[in-house]
């Protein structure tokens, strides 16, 4: 690869172009060509970005937990695992935030309110806060190893915690079912183009996620290298002082 600018390679550049083309197609299909849903009407168009966002967030948090597990169990304990987990967690937070916002806009149109205390919504909000905490732990300072250890354990704890929160919130809602939610599981009839749009959204967002992770973890690698370098410089300076 001759020309490199920053964290890109020719492979990521190609991937990026494909993602942009797919997202443009998604916008055309989702907003223009596809028909309105029989039940949801035009609001179904929000779903073409809402569903892929939350899907991407789940993939991101899953990958973060996977890499954290590999880091903790591995023998060589490469910090690369930690960086992929961190990049993944960061992008996951972004996509959960997006899906919470788009979801509540959809809710405003469908249910008449931005927020209902539905089990799925509530535990998604917890998911968001938990990973905001994860990102905060990564900023705690200390050595890279400390960061990796702390955040890996936390990422695995989060995977344990989220189902428990979801379960308890479901239990809580099932006994206090006064909120009148127009059945969110109402059968959605999908015709060919709608199904295609949804599928395209999932694929495009997943590829976008891969592209983002690649770039972000490379940037993180440089960040780590620089802070190491800063430390080396400081140590050398101190040694020279002591020697002089």
């Amino acid at each position, binding site marked *: 690869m001759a020309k490199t600018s920053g964290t890109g390679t020719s492979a990521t550049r190609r991937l990026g172009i494909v993602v942009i083309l797919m997202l443009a197609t998604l916008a055309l299909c989702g907003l223009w060509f596809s028909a309105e849903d029989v039940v949801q009407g035009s609001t179904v168009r929000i779903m073409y970005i809402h569903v892929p966002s939350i899907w991407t967030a789940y993939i991101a948090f899953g990958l973060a937990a996977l890499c954290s597990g590999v880091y903790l169990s591995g023998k060589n304990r490469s910090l690369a695992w930690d960086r992929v987990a961190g990049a993944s967690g960061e992008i996951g937070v972004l996509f959960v935030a997006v899906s919470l916002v788009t979801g509540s806009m959809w809710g405003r149109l469908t249910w008449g309110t931005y927020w209902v205390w539905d089990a799925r919504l509530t535990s998604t909000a*917890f998911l968001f806060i938990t990973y905001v905490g994860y990102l905060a732990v990564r900023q705690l300072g*200390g050595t890279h*190893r400390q960061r990796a250890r702390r955040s890996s354990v*936390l990422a695995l*704890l989060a995977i344990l915690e989220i189902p428990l929160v979801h379960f*308890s919130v479901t*239990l809580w809602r099932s006994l206090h079912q006064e909120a009148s939610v127009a059945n969110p599981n109402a059968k959605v009839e999908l015709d060919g183009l709608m199904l295609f749009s949804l599928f395209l959204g999932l694929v495009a967002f997943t590829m976008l996620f891969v592209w983002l992770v690649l770039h972000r973890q490379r940037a993180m690698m440089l960040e780590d290298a620089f802070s190491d370098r800063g430390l080396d410089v400081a140590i050398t300076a101190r040694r020279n002082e002591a020697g002089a």
Partner: protein
Amino acid sequence: MSTTGISKRRVVIAVARKDLTIEWNSRILVNQVAPFAAIVMVLFAFALDNDGILQRVAPGLVWLATLFSMLVVIQRSFTVESADGALDALRVAGVDMGAIFMGKTIALMVQLFVLELMLVATAVILYGVEMTLAGFCEAIVTLVVATIGLGSVGTLYGGLAAGARGRETLLPLLLLPAVAPVLIGATRATEAAFGSGGTTVSEGWPWIGLLLVFAVLFSAVGTVAFGPLVDE
């Protein structure tokens, strides 16, 4: 990690006793945390200026006050450890980290339990809560099981941020979402025990089951995860 001759049980007891002795000598729990919790209960009464509402929401307020006070207690529990590098010293000495976790958890649980008893008493006195004998028994069981869960998860997350800058603000962010199941379960169970909102005592037991699952899960995970967390 070997325990170098000392049995695990003795480490647990020694750590728990050490934490409780420090607490007893400084009297922070009695002189500062408990008054803080009491004033929170009084402030709740100011905010919800209505007797009927207070009785209805008393269980939730008891547990909210517990969670807020718990944050203070955990901060203290780990300031003591990281201030003079005591945790590092124990680790270098090859003491089993799982045992240290259990010891600190037990100490935290004892303190929390005292605090909760006080808060329930406050609710009975200030908010006019009335309990049957069966309700009282259920309340005690709820306190015990919820405290095991809170103690474990509190020690685990307290250890996570121990020694790092900015941990005071980080702990609530990490801990409060994690203990949401305890808040839900304990509040419902206590509601049943207090009979608030026309609930009956028998309605509380499934929630105690939820608390039990949480307690078992996090005490087991904590014992395993605490070592890697504070290691290095």
